[in-house]
């Protein structure tokens, strides 16, 4: 499992719901590449085409609220997000993201202290964010043990395959 990333921040507000992450009108798409092209279209359709690989999505509270759609973390992964950082996550989004191997970090106030476009160095296991430009280090909550075990396996699918003896 890759646990450190360097990527550019895209900063969003509170209560970014799954309709904004992935609008309902695209729900019948199943190709991850096509899904990624519409990521965050409900916020700004310019985000996905300009998103750089390993970029960091950084938001306020209750990120991923609303519908249970797994398209939301699929879209973020396919767009190239390495990690999502927020003040808090909605429950279903949290499970979906971890199950698909998308790391999430919970960090109070990071969305107010970091600006879109700043380069960040993220350490998933240590739960740290380093702002390259200023050297400032922000501390996040550590990811729970159960979630780590899923992420380390590369998501719930490889974990289940192992359990099935495949």
């Amino acid at each position, binding site marked *: 499992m890759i646990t450190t990333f360097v990527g550019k921040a895209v900063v969003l507000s509170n209560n970014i719901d799954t309709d904004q992450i992935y609008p309902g009108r695209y*729900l019948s798409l*199943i190709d991850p590449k096509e899904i990624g092209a519409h990521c965050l279209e409900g916020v700004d359709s310019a985000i996905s085409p300009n998103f750089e690989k390993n970029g960091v999505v950084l938001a306020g509270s*209750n990120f991923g*609220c*609303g519908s249970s759609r*797994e398209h939301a973390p699929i879209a973020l992964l396919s767009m190239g997000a390495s990690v999502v950082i927020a003040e*808090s996550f*909605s429950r279903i989004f949290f499970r979906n993201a971890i199950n698909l191997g998308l790391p999430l970090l919970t960090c109070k106030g990071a969305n107010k202290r970091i600006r879109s476009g700043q380069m960040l160095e993220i350490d998933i296991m240590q739960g740290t964010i380093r702002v390259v430009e200023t050297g400032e280090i922000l501390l996040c909550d550590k990811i729970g043990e159960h979630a780590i075990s899923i992420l380390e396996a590369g998501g719930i699918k490889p974990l289940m*395959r192992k359990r099935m003896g495949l």
Partner: protein
Amino acid sequence: MHAIEKILAKHAGKASVTTGEIIFAKIDFAEINDLYLQTVYSFMEMGGTKVWDNNKVAFVFDHYAPAPTIQSAKNQAEMREFAQKNAFKHHFDINAGVCHQVMVEAGIILPGRLIVATDSHTTTHGAFGAFGTGVGATDMATVLLTGELWFRVPEIVEIRIEGIPAKGVYPKDVVLHVLGKMKADGAVYKAIDFTGSYVNQLGPAGRMVLCNMAVEMGAKTAYMQPNKLVMDYVERVAAYPFEVSYTDPGYLYEQGYTFDVTHLSPQIAIPHSVDRVRSIEDVENVKVNQGFIGSCTGGRLEDFESAANILRGKKLPPFVRLVIIPASTKVLEQCMEKGILQELIQSGATLSTPGCGPCLGAHEGIIAPGEVCITASNRNFPGRMGSTDAGIYLASPATVAASVLNGHITDPRNYLT
């Protein structure tokens, strides 16, 4: 322990559970809707061939019923094939309705049962004293494989609602009021136990509205101790054995909130957030282009009855439309028997067949840029019903009816004597 904790403990094969503990619980019923062909793909990627129990899984085709695109038709076709191959005992095709309504009517949702569905509004089933929670496609695939799922035992908060509001103020108004105070992140990851004199007298339909909207506060699940009205209903429809759970006397909630709804006015959530709630007096005169009565929140017999009471014998003004979609075929039949659908159609309503309709912006009443829809459904996020430049106002079915009748937001109490 709380009744919710007892349900989790029982399904985890444990004598007790504590808040924050991770448990593996056996699932009583798993429902997958037609947005989630991915569940089948994930199941196969995990090495699955046959589901763990073909009497405990069902597909409900509701979000895209009947299929509006070739892609959604293909997704449903693949799901049908999987259901047939696995010999599912229950199957709800495009003629059934919204999952949270049809599962209730089929006697699947019963007190003490643990229900997961690939839909966030699975909190609805707390109305029957069941533990219901939404999961994603891949989470669901692990359920199909093993019959189990991991859960974090949630903190439980009490929302006590006292008093009986005046005529013209409905369960939707009550829950919008609560949501406006609790906010969209007011109960993230927590379980909500609704109590109090208001809840105690509510029947299944009203209870479903409150528990349904609990997820809009971020709740993992909702719960209401079954009353006689609920027990009479479940005993009539039950397709499985069940056992009611009870909270121990003196149980300490993580937090408690009390609301008195005696003097409540009709409530409206204004664009673009479910927790931007106003009393109707503050938003009257906002012009509306379309009304929608339907969905897992506002598509039951009681909802169409309250709308018909306002629209009976009257006509919608020109250039204003009202989309009505019964939540299930059973609801549609009940409304026809009572003549309600005929009355609404005579008033100028547009009827579509049971399903989620425009609630999530898939089809059957999508709105254009600059338009306003007043709706009995559950979400007003930007773009939820189509254009991100449209405005969605959440209200009770009666407020929707009164508003389309006037072409602007209108207090339904003006029409009730």
